[in-house]
């Protein structure tokens, strides 16, 4: 006579099993193709939103100034570069601050996206190891956070525009949304690819820092594009657009900075009558058309952006494909 083990629960009056036949089977072991990956990201868009919010929250958790830092960064850049380039080096760009800010806006978005995107998988090792979700969401969330910063920084530019009483160019405005979209796709493509590579080769992050530094100085943000174009000459001007950021930066500068014919006479020439009154119509020099940029029609911008856009889309799908291959062992390697 032995006492029995604990009794099994009564199995007779079970409620119906919830999964019978209704739920479609999911083959978890298959590697989704880039389009399916995109569809997965779309299904998990709410998670994307949450992770973006998390990204923002975590970034400024325990910091006193929080989002103010986002604004201080371009403000400080602005002051330093204005002093160095407009005052010391005397770069011939009127309203240098606005010129610089228009390009910096693009660059800040691009570099934050890549910077935080690259580390996004390794930083979230806890999540990646424990649960399944479309992992591209992590670099995409980094980009989501960068978008928020982008808009915050736009306020600095808008403030500057108001301060200097400048208006964006309406003629070139159609190119701006295209530039934003191309920038987004390009940043997403690179962030997705780099985030996966960084799992296996951790010094991608450090390499990226150097690459971004060089890239920044090659992107006609601090100096006017006109200098580049003049140096290359009309036949080879297209070489500049091999840097995909340049057409985007130029579009931003063209639309937001909106270089106009400016009368520079009042400070270049002293009034001839010695009145010291500031301007002298007689001494007025010819208007300098868009001294920072080369005068190109809207079509030129659109075509350059389109080419970059096509390349960016190709890169994007390539990145998704690469990500899918590298994803297999991510949870182990991380």
């Amino acid at each position, binding site marked *: *006579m*032995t*006492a*029995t*083990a*604990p009794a099994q*629960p009564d199995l007779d009056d*079970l*409620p*119906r*099993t*919830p*999964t*019978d*036949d209704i*739920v*479609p*089977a*999911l*083959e*978890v*072991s*298959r*590697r989704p193709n880039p389009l399916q990956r995109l569809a997965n990201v779309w299904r*998990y868009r*709410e*998670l994307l939103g*949450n*992770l973006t919010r*998390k990204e923002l*929250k*975590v970034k400024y*958790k325990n910091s006193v100034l929080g989002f103010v830092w986002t604004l201080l960064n371009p403000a400080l850049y602005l002051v330093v570069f204005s002093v160095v380039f407009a005052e010391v080096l005397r770069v011939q760009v009127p309203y240098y601050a606005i010129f610089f800010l228009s390009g910096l806006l693009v660059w800040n978005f691009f570099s934050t996206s890549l910077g935080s995107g690259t580390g996004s998988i390794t930083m*979230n090792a*806890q*999540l*990646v*190891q*424990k*649960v*399944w*979700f479309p992992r591209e969401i992590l670099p995409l969330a980094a980009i989501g956070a960068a978008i928020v910063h982008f808009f915050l920084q736009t306020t600095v530019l808008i403030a500057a525009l108001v301060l200097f009483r400048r208006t964006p160019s309406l003629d070139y405005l159609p190119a701006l949304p295209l530039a934003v979209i191309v920038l987004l796709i390009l940043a997403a493509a690179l962030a997705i690819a780099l985030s996966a590579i960084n799992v296996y*080769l*951790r*010094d*991608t992050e450090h*390499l990226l820092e150097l690459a971004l530094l060089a890239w920044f100085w090659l992107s006609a943000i601090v100096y006017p594009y006109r200098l580049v174009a003049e140096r290359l000459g009309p036949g080879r001007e297209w070489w500049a657009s091999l840097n995909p950021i340049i057409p985007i930066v130029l579009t931003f500068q063209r639309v937001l900075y909106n270089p106009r014919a400016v009368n520079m006479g009042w400070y270049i020439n002293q009034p001839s009558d010695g009145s010291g009154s500031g301007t002298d119509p007689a001494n007025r020099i010819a208007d300098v058309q868009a001294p920072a940029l080369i005068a190109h029609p809207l079509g030129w911008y659109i075509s350059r952006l389109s080419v970059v856009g096509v390349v960016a889309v190709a890169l994007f799908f390539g990145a998704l494909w690469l990500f899918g291959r590298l*994803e*297999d*062992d*991510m*949870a*182990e390697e991380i």
Partner: protein
Amino acid sequence: MAHAVTIDSVSKMFKLARDKPKSAKERVIRAGRIDWEEFHALSDVSFDVDTGETLAMLGHNGSGKSTLLKCVAGTLRPTSGTITTRGRLAALLELGAGFHPDLTGRENVYLNGSILGFSKVQVDAIFDDVVEFAELHEFIDQQVKHFSSGMYARLGFAVAINVEPDILLVDEVLSVGDEAFQRKCIDRIRRMQRDGRTILVVSHATDTVRQICDRAVVLDHGRKIADGPPGESIRTFREALAARGVEVPLDAEEADHAPPVAIDPDTGQVPIVVSTETRPADPTATVKIRHVIPDYPDPEAGHLLPGQPLRLRIGYAATGLIDDVAFALEIFDERGTRLMGTTTDVLEQYIHAVDGEGEVVFAFEQVPLLDGRFPLTVAIHSHDGGTIYDEREFEDAIAVMNPGRTRGTVHFPAKIEHIFDF
């Protein structure tokens, strides 16, 4: 019945570099000169899990059981083979869900909810249950990096079960938290079983496997070596371990065949047993029950008050050395319904041998009986129950006297609270 999980000839191979280049520089310098070593974590494993089934995966460390669970969860992708799942899946891999240390408990619950496919509204609906289950009311708005590992695991488990997954994957999670929480987890898993949910467990704890699983699969070096009822699979698992020279942990049922030396729960020492080497067991010896005495806290009273402790002394007299012996006790009510039955083997507090006269005491911290006379059955038998040396049915009893006016048989200590809003 539909299969909730189908695992079809799944293999997983890791390429391990003997000296792995961790940086691009090294990789460039040593390109083509890397010593790759193939490690087959899983080799051609196939089995199905039926909807509503609870399946355990057993195996030694490195047998591939966790890798397989990760493949089912989707965090790893197998090198070849297919895995198909039906229904929403929640996984608790290696102690707890994926939480972000810098976020608060609350934020993590919402984040985890959305990872498991819940909308904010849906998480709102289960949030209180999650906190309640995890017992983290005061801490839920703290960053989880300040959580203890137990709190972390509790919150992870609470989220995973409250999203009501169709398939729950659990890796060694049931072994964390205090005993009370473990019990709560087991209860909750039983409820999920009743609801027809599918559960995959990876565990070392064969007790737990036996307790909650319908079936167990054993992996050994990435191969499936057994698939069947938990008892059989556990035996195969043990044999595989023994073959590799690993100390075999034994538990109650296994002891039916080989009584182990257990540590005395009171002293923490291995009890001194008359060595069977110098004194061989006497096959003709037998043992009788001399007496069964309930030691009431108040010896004058001759009865017990509800909730009081009790020592039940069973005296024996053996004619020779017997090493295959266990003591059994059953408590009935007056109508003959068995209220409780256990043995020294079931309690895993083994009697190693008896010889001459002695006493075995069943000590109860408290007896949750209310009122009445409760007949006892006491027996002394061999580990497998094949030989019954002596048995006393319904001859002895314990008496409980209820000083209060609550009616019934069982003692439920109760306090009254009156929450009112006139």
